[in-house]
């Protein structure tokens, strides 16, 4: 089962992952990743300091079709029984989930790698634009070079 969604409202990952897991009797493993809006406390997280809100924008004609294509390639590449891929758009507050990817497979390695693969592509190659609100206003977030390096791991 492939379930790919763009959501404009806050979601509870567990409420989606539970039924998704139930829908795949006979699976060997489920791996789930949930990304949340980082609060940025402490001096180590200098870049994140003071984030009050985050906004993700997308481009309707491209964003969802690209996620569908990504899901299809993950299902094929990792021989998945099912894949859940949910991404928020719009304004979010600290602690709210942004993204949830869950993969069901007969064996653990496929499930774990599929989630890793999907997240690297969602970070660096899906049509989303992120900006953060700090005390002095909104700031667009540039992709980091680490994101591209992570993505490059999957090209053959």
């Amino acid at each position, binding site marked *: 089962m492939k379930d790919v969604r763009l959501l404009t409202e806050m979601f509870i990952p567990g409420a989606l992952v539970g039924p998704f897991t139930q829908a795949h009797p006979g699976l060997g493993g489920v791996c789930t990743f949930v990304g949340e809006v980082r609060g940025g406390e402490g001096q180590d997280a200098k870049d994140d300091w003071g984030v009050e809100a985050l906004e993700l924008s997308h481009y309707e004609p491209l964003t969802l079709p690209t996620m569908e294509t990504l899901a299809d390639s993950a299902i094929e590449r990792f021989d998945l029984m099912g894949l859940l891929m949910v*991404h928020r758009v719009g304004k979010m507050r600290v602690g709210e989930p*942004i993204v949830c990817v869950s993969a069901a497979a007969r064996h653990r390695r496929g499930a774990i790698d599929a989630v890793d693969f999907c997240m690297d592509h969602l970070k660096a190659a899906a*049509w989303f634009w992120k900006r953060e609100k700090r005390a002095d206003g909104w700031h667009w977030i540039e992709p980091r070079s680490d994101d591209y390096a992570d993505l490059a791991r999957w090209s053959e």
Partner: protein
Amino acid sequence: MAVKIIFLGPLRDMAGMDSTQVEAPLDWARLLKAVGEDIAAQLQEERVNIACGGRVLSDKTELQASDGDEVALLPPVSGG
């Protein structure tokens, strides 16, 4: 009829609007003139893409937009 140009991400702030309409047809040279100097400079960077009619162009300089097309200007993404 016209071509609709959509500004995405930081380009939206730079343009000061979400979208604009220009007369068709629209090619690469006319697009650069239509969007103003700052955005034209961005478009010439390799990491900025262009989509026409919901398809990302492999070579943006070959843009050929006609009546009713939507041309989206796509700066580098940051999702997840």
